[in-house]
C-alpha cells in the first residue's frame, strides 16, 4: 500500500466515514446528505456528527419515513445535478426502496442510452448482535448485487471506509455502500487527506501460500484472526478483503487460488444464493484445474437471525469457524493439542453478541 507519504493516524470506522463525508461536502457543494436520523443527536452512530452545523439545513437533512419516495426524490435530485448521499440506519429499511433502486436508479443510464446518469450513494447499515433480530440484521448484498447498473460495495477497514466513500460520491453511478455495524468501532490507520480507493479492487490483508480466504466485510477481520493464529501452526493463509460485491474482483481471487489451490469464501450473509456462491462458481469456471480441493462457503444458516442471545450463539461464523474450515480443507497432520490450544486462543472472552467488551447497548 502506498502509505509512505501518508500520516499514520488511527481513527475508527465511524470517524473515517464522518471525515470522508465532511471532506466530500467541503470539496463539492453538490453533495447533500439525507436520511432518517442524519441530523439527530445520535448522528447515525456518529458518522454524521457536526455536519448539520457545518453545512446547514439546505444540505444536511432528516427525512420523512418514506424510503421508496425519498430514494426516487434523491434520484431526481441526482438527475437535476446534485450528488445525494442517502443513509439507512438498517439495510432492512432499504428493501422498501427496491422499486426505485432497481427500476430507476439502476436502469436510468442504460435505458436512456447513456444520456443521463444517477450519481447517488446509499449507505446501508447491517446490524448484528444485541438482539437485532430478524428485521434488523439482514446481510442482503447478494440481492442488490444481482442488479446490473448498481454498484455494491462493502468497505472493511477504516481506510476503506473513507477512501471508498469518497470514490462512491465521485462515481457517476448509483453505489450502495453497505456497512457492517460491528465495523464501526474498529480502529485503523486513515490518511488525513482526501483520497480515493477504487470500488473494484480487493486487497490482500494477509499473505499466504496454503489456502485462500476471500472474505467480505466483517468476515475479513474474523478470517484475519484465524490466519494469524494458524500461522503459529505452520499453516499459511492468504486473506483477501474483497471490498466490493458488484463488481466482484474475480481476478485477485483467481491469482491467489492459482497460488494456493484452495479456496474458502467467508460471507456475512446466509448461505443460499449468496455472493459466496457466485464467487465460487466463477472460480470453478475459470480455475478448476488449479483447485486441489472443493471450495468451501462460510456463511450464516438459512434461517432468519433470531433475537434471543441464547439462539444466536451459533448463528454467526467466527474465527473458530474459519480455522476449523481451514484445517479440514488442508487435511494436514495436526497435533490435536496444538489445535485445541489454537482454538482456545481464538475463543473470545467477550459475550458472543457484542463487538467488544465496552459495548453495553442499546445499539
Amino acid at each position: 500500500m502506498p502509505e509512505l507519504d501518508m500520516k499514520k493516524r488511527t481513527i475508527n470506522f465511524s470517524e473515517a466515514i464522518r471525515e470522508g463525508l465532511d471532506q466530500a461536502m467541503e470539496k463539492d457543494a453538490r453533495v447533500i446528505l439525507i436520511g432518517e436520523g442524519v441530523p439527530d443527536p445520535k448522528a447515525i452512530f456518529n458518522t454524521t456528527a457536526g455536519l448539520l452545523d457545518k453545512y446547514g439545513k439546505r444540505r444536511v437533512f432528516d427525512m420523512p419515513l418514506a424510503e421508496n419516495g425519498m430514494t426516487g426524490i434523491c434520484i431526481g435530485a441526482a438527475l437535476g445535478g446534485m450528488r445525494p448521499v442517502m443513509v439507512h440506519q438498517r439495510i432492512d429499511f432499504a428493501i422498501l426502496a427496491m422499486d426505485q433502486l432497481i427500476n430507476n436508479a439502476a436502469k436510468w443510464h442504460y435505458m436512456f442510452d447513456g444520456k443521463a446518469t444517477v450519481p447517488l450513494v446509499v449507505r446501508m447499515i447491517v446490524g448484528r448482535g444485541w438482539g437485532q433480530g430478524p428485521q434488523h440484521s439482514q446481510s442482503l448484498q447478494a440481492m442488490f448485487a444481482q442488479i446490473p447498473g448498481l454498484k455494491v460495495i462493502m468497505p472493511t477497514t477504516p481506510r476503506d471506509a473513507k477512501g471508498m466513500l469518497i470514490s462512491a460520491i465521485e462515481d457517476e453511478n448509483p453505489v450502495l455502500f453497505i456497512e457492517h455495524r460491528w465495523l464501526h468501532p474498529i480502529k485503523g490507520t486513515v490518511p488525513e487527506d482526501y483520497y480515493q480507493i477504487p470500488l473494484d479492487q480487493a486487497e490482500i490483508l494477509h499473505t499466504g501460500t496454503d489456502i485462500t480466504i476471500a472474505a467480505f466485510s466483517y468476515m475479513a477481520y474474523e478470517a484475519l484472526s484465524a490466519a494469524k493464529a494458524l500461522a503459529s501452526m505452520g499453516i499459511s493463509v492468504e486473506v483477501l478483503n474483497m471490498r466490493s460485491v458488484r463488481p466482484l474482483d474475480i481476478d485477485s481471487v483467481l491469482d491467489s487460488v492459482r497460488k494456493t489451490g484452495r479456496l474458502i469464501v467467508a460471507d456475512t450473509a446466509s448461505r443460499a444464493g449468496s455472493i459466496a456462491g457466485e464467487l465460487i462458481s466463477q472460480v470453478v469456471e475459470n480455475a478448476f484445474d488449479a483447485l486441489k480441493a472443493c471450495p468451501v462457503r462460510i456463511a450464516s444458516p438459512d434461517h432468519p437471525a433470531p433475537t434471543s442471545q441464547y439462539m444466536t450463539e451459533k448463528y454467526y461464523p467466527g474465527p473458530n469457524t474459519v480455522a476449523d474450515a481451514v484445517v479440514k480443507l488442508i487435511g494436514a497432520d495436526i497435533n490435536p493439542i496444538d489445535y485445541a490450544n489454537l482454538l482456545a486462543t481464538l475463543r473470545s472472552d467477550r459475550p458472543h453478541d457484542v463487538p467488544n467488551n465496552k459495548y453495553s447497548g442499546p445499539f
Partner: protein
Amino acid sequence: MQQMQPARLFKSMLRIRRIEEALADRYAEQEMRCPMHLCIGQEAIAVGVCAALHPTDRVFSNHRAHGHYLAKGGNLNAMLAELYGRATGCCGGRGGSMHLIDLDVGFMGSTPIVGGTVPLAVGSAWASSLKQSDQVTVVFFGDGCFEEGVVHESLNFAALHKLPVLFVCENNDFSVYTRRNERQPDRPIYRLAEAHGMAAFSGNGNDVEEVLNISSEAIDNARLGRGPQFIEFRTYRWREHCGPNFDDDLNYRSTQEIESGMGDCPIASHAAELTLKDASFSRDIEKYEDEIRQEIAAAFEFALSSKKPTSEDACGKVYA
C-alpha cells in the same frame, strides 16, 4: 402568464393526434415491436400544460408519453426511430415507446412503472430549489397513481419543502381496463392532494384553453416559491389501454360510452371555437394537415432508413 396563440395550441394537438393515428395504422406491420400506449383523446392536457412552461422547465412522464414528449418539443424523428428500435432512437433502441427522453427540451424521461417518476420530478424540483434556479418541474400521471404509496410520499415531501413542482393527474377513469370506482372510494383526487398541503385545482382536460389557464396559474405559483401545485384534469381515453385499436369488443365499457367520449373531442371543439371566431380558420386547418402529413412521412422515412443496433450494442452503457 405566458400566452400561446390559440392556433398554435390547435396545431400542436392536431399534430399529436395525426402522429399517433399514423402509429396506429402502421403498428400491424409488426415492425414497431414494443408496447405502445396512445393518448388519442387526451391531447389537450399535454399541449395546454406544456404551453405554459419555459423551454428550460422539466417534464417527467409515464408509459402514455407520446403527447407529453411532443408537446414539450421532443424530436419526432428520434421518437419514431425509438419505436422502431433503431440506433437513432432517443434511447438508441433501449427504451421503445415507454421510455422517451429528450434532454435538449427538458423532457427528462418517461417510464411505465405507475407512480415511479413522481418522486423523480420532486427530486428534480428539489435540485432546482437548492440551486436557486427558477425552473419548474412537471410530472404527468394517471388516476391509478393515487393508489401507489410513492405518490403520497412524494406529495408529502414536496409540500414539506415547498418545492417548485406541478403534479398533473390525467384522470381518464381507467387503470388498464379497471374503472376507478373499483379501485378508489368516491372522492375527488385533487382534494387528497390539497390535504397534503398544497394548492390544488381541477378542470376539464378536454378544453385546451382551460388547461392552459389553470396550468399557467399553477406554474406561476410554483415559480414564485408558493410551493407544489396539483391539477386534476378529467379526460377520456379513446383507444385500448395498450395497442393501436379501439376496444369495443372487450365489453368493459359500452359502445355508447366510447361514442360519447369521442363526442367530447378536444381538437374538434377547439377547431369549432376558432372557426366561429374566424371563418377562414378552416383553410388554416387544411394547411396544418398538409404540413403535418409531410412531417410525419419524413419522420417514418428517417426511422425506417436508420441504422439497426445489434446484439453487440446491447451490453454497453450499463455503467457511466
